């Protein structure tokens, strides 16, 4: 084991995204998941109409909201999943592949969300 020179890292930025995404996921996802994933499909509550949802999604504030709703939790996932694979499976030799998969996936989802919200 050598004493490598200490390199400045980007971890702080990734950690901030993880942390902000954790807050967004904790506060916003439960109600969305409860309504769209359970209550509406199971008929517990009346579904909003297609036209109403579309008009909501087209308002600028909702677009910003939905962008944050999608982007930040994806980076939260990327951070946690990366370290779960590092520590849980101890696959050190695959670190770079895991990093690319996690943050690449989060970035892809973010771009997709921006594209959909732009065109909706």
């Amino acid at each position, binding site marked *: 084991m050598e004493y490598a020179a200490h390199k400045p890292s980007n971890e702080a930025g990734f950690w901030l995204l993880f942390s902000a995404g954790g807050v967004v996921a904790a506060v916003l996802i439960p109600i969305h998941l409860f309504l769209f994933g359970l209550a509406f499909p199971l008929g517990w*509550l009346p579904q909003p109409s297609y036209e109403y949802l579309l008009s909501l999604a087209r308002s600028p504030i909702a677009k910003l909201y939905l962008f944050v709703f999608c982007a930040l939790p994806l980076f939260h996932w990327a951070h946690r999943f990366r370290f779960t694979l590092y520590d849980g499976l101890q696959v050190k030799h695959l670190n770079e592949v895991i990093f690319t998969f996690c943050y690449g996936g989060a970035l892809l989802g973010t771009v997709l969300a921006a594209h959909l919200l732009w065109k909706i």
Partner: protein
Amino acid sequence: MTAEAKPTVARYTEFHPRWYRPNVSVYWWMGQRQYLKFILRELSSVFVAIFVVETLFMLSALKGGPQAYADFQNTMASSLMIALNVICFLFVLFHTITWFNLAPRAMPVRMGGKRVPEFLVAAPNYALWVVVSVFVGWLLLRTP
């Protein structure tokens, strides 16, 4: 090694002992409840991501028109998606509760030289959660 080949700057590696790092089993997290809870908490992020992907599908369906959205609704009502969403919901609730309860540990608040009890630091998080959830629910359930 010849005298010329020796590095001129000492790097202090030659006599450094190897780190003591015993091999840990890949299944280290299975033995104890706390470790299992830690791994499950970290894995909750997978279910967070799954629901974001579902939301992206919903936005795509909304963009695609009424028929595409009706198809999306039918898919969401399939027993496979309901089962997946039940699991997702439990994991996301687990994330919410562990995340809120972590706040007082990450940021211990002191007032008058005493530490504010943890539940008082976590309480505003829960209050915010309730207010936001009620607002989102109201917005989606009201009939315009």
